């Protein structure tokens, strides 16, 4: 098995996420923040039980978590890389979301 205390998976692709479990060290966790609709991960129970590994999911948070996210961004000098589009172009911006570098943002 591997050496990661945690693996954060942002790509909803069940086959790849299944493989990632091999990268966990004992007590490591695979955290899914994206999921493939209708697809199942294949997990060897022994890999979880012996070594106390885990596969968990996560999304979002409440408003105070958002405040702490922005505070952390300021503290560490982190900024998302965004491209802006006018509100009137929402349809095209949505359709081309996956081509954005990296997050498309509508401005009013």
């Amino acid at each position, binding site marked *: 098995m*591997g050496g990661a205390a945690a693996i954060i998976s942002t790509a909803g692709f069940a086959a790849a996420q299944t493989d990632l479990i091999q990268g966990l060290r004992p007590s490591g966790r695979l955290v899914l923040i994206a999921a493939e609709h209708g697809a199942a991960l294949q997990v060897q129970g022994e890999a979880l039980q012996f070594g106390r590994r885990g596969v968990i999911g996560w999304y979002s948070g409440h408003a105070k978590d958002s405040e702490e996210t922005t505070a952390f961004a300021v503290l560490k000098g982190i900024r*998302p890389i965004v491209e802006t589009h006018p509100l009137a172009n929402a349809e095209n911006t949505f359709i081309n979301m996956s081509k954005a570098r990296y997050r*498309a943002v509508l401005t009013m």
Partner: protein
Amino acid sequence: MATQAMRAVQVTKAGAPFVCTDIPVPEPGRGQVRLRVHACGVCGGDAIARNGLMGVTLPRTPGHEVAGVIDAVGEGVTDWRVGQRVGVGWQGGYCTTCEFCRAGDFVNCVRAQVVGLSYDGGYAEYLVVPQLALARIPDELSFEEAGPLMCAGITTFNALRNCGARAGETVASHGIGGPWPPRRSIRCQDGLPNDCDKSRTRQGSTVSPARR
């Protein structure tokens, strides 16, 4: 003071293209505030409203990565004032009385509201939200930067800080999915080992286990 009408993008029919239209500026009710929206990120989750899923009623304005300024406050709002820079994300309100809320697990509220699904979201010049949904935005962040932190950013940051890994341990990131832009910077600057980079991969491909 707001004008009487505003530009807004709506889902009018499930699965159909968005419609940009003029609708009345909403008024904040008790416990609610109105935001003048400056920026709203475009998220894959907006497809839920677009496709009429999760019981959404139409027409509906999508958008849950909202950043703006408080424009008006409703009755009973005491801790928020006009002019504050605030953001709104996916979590659009919770009941405070259910089993999960009583334990502080607001995200799993059985009556949770979602911005842009339960009520109109940020693809508009104004929106009205419960005060519970508001997050302050530091002056150092632009509205365009703050918007995506309300969904993509919080999801990654919260997942990372709740995953059980401690400072100095190896954390690998997989993929360049929606939450990628904020996450990339977090990984590089959070004091995590540089060999996290070895696990970086293209979306959908297999990752090599990160090693200490």
